[in-house]
């Protein structure tokens, strides 16, 4: 499997480590009223789609960047690769 890194170009999947669902970027607000419920969901509940799935991959044998990879769980086709840093900023993180 080849992951087309946004900065470095096509790289073998062996250079990467897989973490899981990219929903982990959206860490809940610990001050929220229902923070306990939100953290329970954040920590334990995952969607398990048969199809397009956004997931976090770490380029350990490369530039040590985190990526958000959109992969089809049925075919392993990769349809999108973004830097997790950019994606987190887009979702409202300030740095």
């Amino acid at each position, binding site marked *: 499997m080849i992951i087309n890194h946004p*900065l*470095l*170009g*096509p*790289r*073998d999947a*062996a*250079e990467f480590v897989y973490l899981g669902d990219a929903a982990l970027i959206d860490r809940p607000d610990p001050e929220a009223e229902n923070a306990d419920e939100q953290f329970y969901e954040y920590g334990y509940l995952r969607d398990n789609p048969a199809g397009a799935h956004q997931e976090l991959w770490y380029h350990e*044998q*490369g*530039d*040590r*960047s985190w990526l958000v990879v959109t992969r089809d769980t049925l075919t392993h086709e990769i349809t999108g690769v973004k*830097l997790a*840093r950019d994606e987190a900023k887009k979702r409202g993180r300030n*740095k």
Partner: protein
Amino acid sequence: MADFTLTAEPFLGRFEQHYDDVKLREIYDVAFVSAAIPLRKLTAAKKAVSAAFGVDLPEVGMSALSQDSDMRILRLGNDQAFVIFPRAQHDTGAEPHVADLLGDVFYTTDQSDVWVTLEIAGTGARRALERICPLNIAPDAFGIGATARTSMEHLGTIIIRNGEDSFLLMSASSSAHSFLHAIETSIANTA
């Protein structure tokens, strides 16, 4: 008590070997300083590099030689750069030397004893790497000065194209002999 004198030896004992169309040798006494770019300091980092080395901070995946050609700066990621140069020139220590040149913009760390460096050169160099290097190192994809961090035979490696038919390979000094063995095996397998 006996009077001992200790002499430091390169990791691979100045290894040098010629094969048909490939030459493999250890480059020793390389000073290797990591220069990480702090968050939101990219503009300042670019300025510091131009002032210190007389060249622009390379794009990710490229390296550049300083104006007087004795230092090479590698850009391996958004915020990850390295400076390499012959160690013997700076007795005061590699990291203070680079920190002096760059000012206080970068986070600098001396990694000189962490890396072993091999140079593989000759018209057969690319062929010798084709089974061990997972990257496309054809000249149109990986020209002179290009650099990348990858893994070869499971060992983390930095590769730099430093000439038409010449590459520098850097890997952890703690597994220097395994790395040399892997490269030699690759040369033999593709001869």
